[in-house]
């Protein structure tokens, strides 16, 4: 992926400066703090980060799935083909949801209605958005199940979720999400609850469907292996912010942010070496009730400088389409050369 293909693939979704907060008894949680990204047709954007960093909240706010109260979208815009879909509090609707943007979730076992047949649940979307009759919609549901590689789709469509395995449920979820031919599919940790073999099949399926339909995918995950396999573009999220954005190659081979480097170092490898110890990132993410004034990663960063504590770093361009929020990349930073050297591929850090 390079600048050229960037220009070829049209931008579907433009998210700018999205901020989401939740009111809780303990105070206001600043879950997403000014996030911007573009989604291009036929491309996969992966949002990576550890639990609680705001990955899911980001996409759920685009889908209008943030329960309000307690949640609220404080600022930001999200334009789908130029049309604003995050209107103050919620998505401009039911027209976009399910029809233009489909979504699949982490746990397929609990994400389907237990008292409704799989076929009916898929058909429902078509009846609502496309005006299909129940019969037409059911027939189409069976076709969709076949597309997602479920055997005997007609019989299966009449069954209930408890009669399906986890992998089949996730396939059904995918069939449901793509029923109306959405231009964007949001996959919120789609394989976290599945075992590795199934995980691999689901990822293959997503990729094939993407190629067939020129569909964009927003993939939420904390698994760098999944990112390496699926993503064209990657956003590394931490404490409600994107610390680094770029192509998958940029992120893996030209990591510019110390957090990205830390994540890569913390990845287990298959190498048979004596120093197999995992390299954890010391400390824990900052309290989002009162986010730090400066860089969110300051407390855990091995390269922290004075400036990092109180001044939030802006996004510094590191290359074409590659940017990072880190003071090390400021032109006047005395350790800039060190940082750039450090950004080069590190030993054993590739995938």
């Amino acid at each position: 992926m390079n600048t050229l293909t960037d220009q070829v693939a049209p931008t579907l979704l433009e998210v700018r400066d999205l901020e989401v907060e939740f009111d809780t008894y303990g105070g206001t949680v600043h879950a997403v703090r000014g996030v911007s990204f573009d989604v291009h047709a036929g491309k996969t954007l992966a949002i990576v980060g550890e639990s609680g960093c705001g990955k899911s909240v980001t996409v759920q706010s685009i889908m209008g799935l943030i329960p309000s109260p307690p949640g609220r979208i404080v600022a930001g815009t999200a334009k789908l083909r130029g049309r604003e879909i995050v209107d103050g509090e919620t998505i401009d609707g039911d027209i976009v949801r399910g029809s233009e943007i489909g979504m699949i979730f982490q746990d397929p076992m609990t994400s389907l209605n237990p008292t409704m047949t799989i076929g009916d649940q898929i058909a429902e979307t078509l009846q609502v958005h496309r005006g299909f009759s129940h019969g037409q919609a059911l027939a189409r549901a069976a076709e969709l199940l076949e597309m997602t590689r479920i055997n005997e789709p007609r019989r299966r469509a009449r069954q209930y979720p408890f009669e399906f395995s986890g992998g089949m449920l996730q396939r059904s979820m995918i069939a449901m999400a793509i029923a109306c031919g959405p231009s964007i599919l949001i996959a919120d940790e789609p394989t976290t609850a599945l075992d590795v073999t199934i995980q691999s099949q689901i990822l293959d399926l997503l990729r094939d469907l993407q190629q067939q339909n020129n569909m964009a995918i927003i993939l939420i995950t904390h698994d760098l292996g999944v990112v390496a396999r699926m993503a064209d573009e990657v956003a590394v999220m931490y404490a409600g912010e994107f610390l680094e954005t770029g192509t998958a190659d940029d992120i893996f081979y030209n990591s510019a942010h110390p957090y990205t480097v830390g994540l890569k170092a913390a990845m287990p490898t298959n190498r048979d070496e004596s120093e197999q110890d995992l390299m954890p990132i010391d400390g824990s993410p900052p309290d989002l009730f009162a986010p730090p004034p400066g860089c969110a990663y300051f407390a855990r960063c091995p390269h922290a400088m004075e400036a990092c504590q109180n001044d939030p770093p802006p996004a510094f361009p590191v290359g074409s389409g590659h940017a990072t929020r880190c003071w090390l990349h400021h032109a006047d930073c005395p350790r800039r050369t060190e940082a750039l050297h450090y950004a080069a591929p590190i030993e054993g850090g590739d995938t």
Partner: protein
Amino acid sequence: MIRYTIKRLIQGVITVWFIATATFMAMHSVPGDPLMNDKAISEEIRKNLEAQYGLDKPIIEQYGIYLWNMVRGDFGISFAQENRRVNDIIREHFPISAILGILAIAFAGLGGILFGALTARYRNQMPDIVIMFLVILGISVPSFVFAALGQLALVKLNAFFGISILPVAGWGTLSHMIAPSLVLGLGTMAFLTRLMRSSMLEIVSSDYVRTARSKGLPPTRIFLRHELRNAILPVVTVLGPSIAAITTGGFVVELVFAIPGLGRYFVQAVQQLDYTVIMGTTVFYGAFLVFMVIVVDLLYGLIDPRVRLE
């Protein structure tokens, strides 16, 4: 499904036999007997009567006779009421109790589901706070208090308007049925409201409702197809036991509203130690409740496919 139904019916028969045995034992271990009423009778008459009713036989034999008659569907003749067969008492008065009970259950079920969904929808807002306060009243105040208060309110209301809006007591027309069935169903409705509220709150934040919203379905469709059907499962589960609660509550309400239901005969029979009537009504009620619980369980399968196939 058929196998399951048969299995449940067999279990039901065993339960009824248990009820019959327990009732028989309890009845005979209470001091006194149906012949020890206010009128003093000579030893000779007593002997004759005992022989006629079979009370002179050993307990085990009496038990055997009772059981055998019961299997044939004959509950015998009342000791206390002249020339009345227990079967006739049940046939004449049970339908009245049944209508009262069905109305009360319908009222409790519909009200419970409606108010439960409403309170969940307006959680911690005015409708929720008001209804939940009333629910606590409904659960803690016994039905005979509501019965008396309801009658008093009706008297005042009828006097105020100068015409009889609803009759205060008695039985016969549909308007007679409204007040007692409301009073009878109130406690159960309060209980079901609470259950429905918590169940609804859980469902509303469930993953599959989130999925339904991500599909862009209209709110009414989400409510009817995804929330309501799943939320009423626990309500349906307790519907069986609720029928029991309403039936027993019916004894008192029938008395207060002067309704000629079976409950009144049951209470009378216990006071007079009228063996056959106690035996007949208890076993009949027991069998009825067991049957209703089975029906509810089969209904449950209609709503929840996971239960259907097991």
